[in-house]
């Protein structure tokens, strides 16, 4: 503790003794003037990650999310939620979502999607498209049901248009868990977002931060992702079998009363 204090003081003295240290303009040629706000290399990295995601046929991924609500006076509260999703491309997905408030199960078998609430034993089945991307769009647009980590199925496809990105930059490297990651920051309309993807030939997103600029309090979500590319689940998990005592109920389309 004492030694640390001395070190800090020493550093402080050193800094003071060298006026302009740190404030000195970088020598010509070492700082790159920013001409294009969209750094092509950052876009290329995003493309590469998207392409890699699309090659994954069978995987499971867990996410721990911190999200925020903004109260009327601008004060923010943070909430926690988690989800586990299991995927067999192109048309099978199962998602478990839980938080202090609710637990939900979503099961997609390639033809129908079932939403289940274990605590109430109610489930709703609806016909959906025959691929994961279209299924996600349908649930979102028709029922307002969001699938966790839906970006994983958009990146690398037309659903994630890269020309919408107004700013892209490399923010250096960072370590998430034990993984070395490249850190990128993007600006897209009212959304600022950052992604940490593992380095190497098969980049995977390990962390995602999304800042909503539509509100001056800038509510932000933070997701940490943990991947398993060699899952042991069976195909049977993609078939919803109602538990005993469970009841089917309807699901209301968004535009109806």
């Amino acid at each position, binding site marked *: 503790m004492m030694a640390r204090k001395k070190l800090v003081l020493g550093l402080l003295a050193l800094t003071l003794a060298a006026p302009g240290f740190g404030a000195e303009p970088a020598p010509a040629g070492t700082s790159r003037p920013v001409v294009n706000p969209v750094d092509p290399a950052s876009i290329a990295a995003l493309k590469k990650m998207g392409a890699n995601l699309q090659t994954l046929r069978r995987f499971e991924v867990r996410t721990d999310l911190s*999200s925020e*609500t903004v*109260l009327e006076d601008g004060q923010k509260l943070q909430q926690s939620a988690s989800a586990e999703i299991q995927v067999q491309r192109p048309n099978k997905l199962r998602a478990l979502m839980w938080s202090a*408030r609710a637990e939900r199960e979503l099961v997609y078998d390639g033809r129908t999607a079932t939403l289940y609430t274990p605590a109430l034993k109610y489930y709703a089945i609806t016909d959906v498209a025959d691929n994961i991307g279209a299924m996600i769009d349908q649930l979102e647009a028709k029922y*307002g049901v969001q699938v966790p*980590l839906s970006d994983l199925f958009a990146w690398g496809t037309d659903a994630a248009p890269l020309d919408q990105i107004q700013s892209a930059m490399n923010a250096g490297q960072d370590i998430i868990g034990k993984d070395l990651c490249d850190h990128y920051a993007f600006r897209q309309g009212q959304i600022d977002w950052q992604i940490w993807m593992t380095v190497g030939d098969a980049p995977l997103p390990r962390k995602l931060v999304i800042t909503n600029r539509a509100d001056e309090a800038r509510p932000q*979500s933070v997701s940490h992702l943990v991947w398993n590319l060699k899952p042991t689940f069976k195909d049977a998990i993609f078939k919803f079998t109602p538990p005993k005592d469970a009841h089917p*109920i309807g699901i209301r389309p968004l535009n109806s009363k």
Partner: protein
Amino acid sequence: MKRTFSQLSLAPLGALLLFGFVLAPVAEARDGGARAGGGGRDVHVNNSNRDVRTNNVRNTSVNNVNVNRNVNVDVDRHGGGWNDNYHPVATAAAVTATVAVTAAVVGSVVRTVPANCAPVNYNGVVYQQCGSTWYQPQYVGTQVQYVVINPPY
């Protein structure tokens, strides 16, 4: 109680939301409580001490980069996404709390039903009967809500 959301003034809305919030966990807890971990580990969450001010939510974070935001997230959608049960009004339709003293209007929507309701199966449909009032559960987004209906028989 047959008022639309836009007609509600702020004060009664706050009161309604308080009811809605306090009662909401009860509904999910009825059959064993909120489970955490997705693996059946029972955890009982108690929010009875939660401050009413936490319900005055004006906005939320978003969870996805690539989502069609043409539709107003806060009015038509379920709020902040898959993890969200925080947004005070789940839909543009009027969502009112279960206030026992008020006669339930057919077509109105509540988030929870009173504790004295009994589940009734009729013609393959599950209802909640509470005295002379009947509710039919439905999903709105990922949330179960209850519509007041005419008695099915």
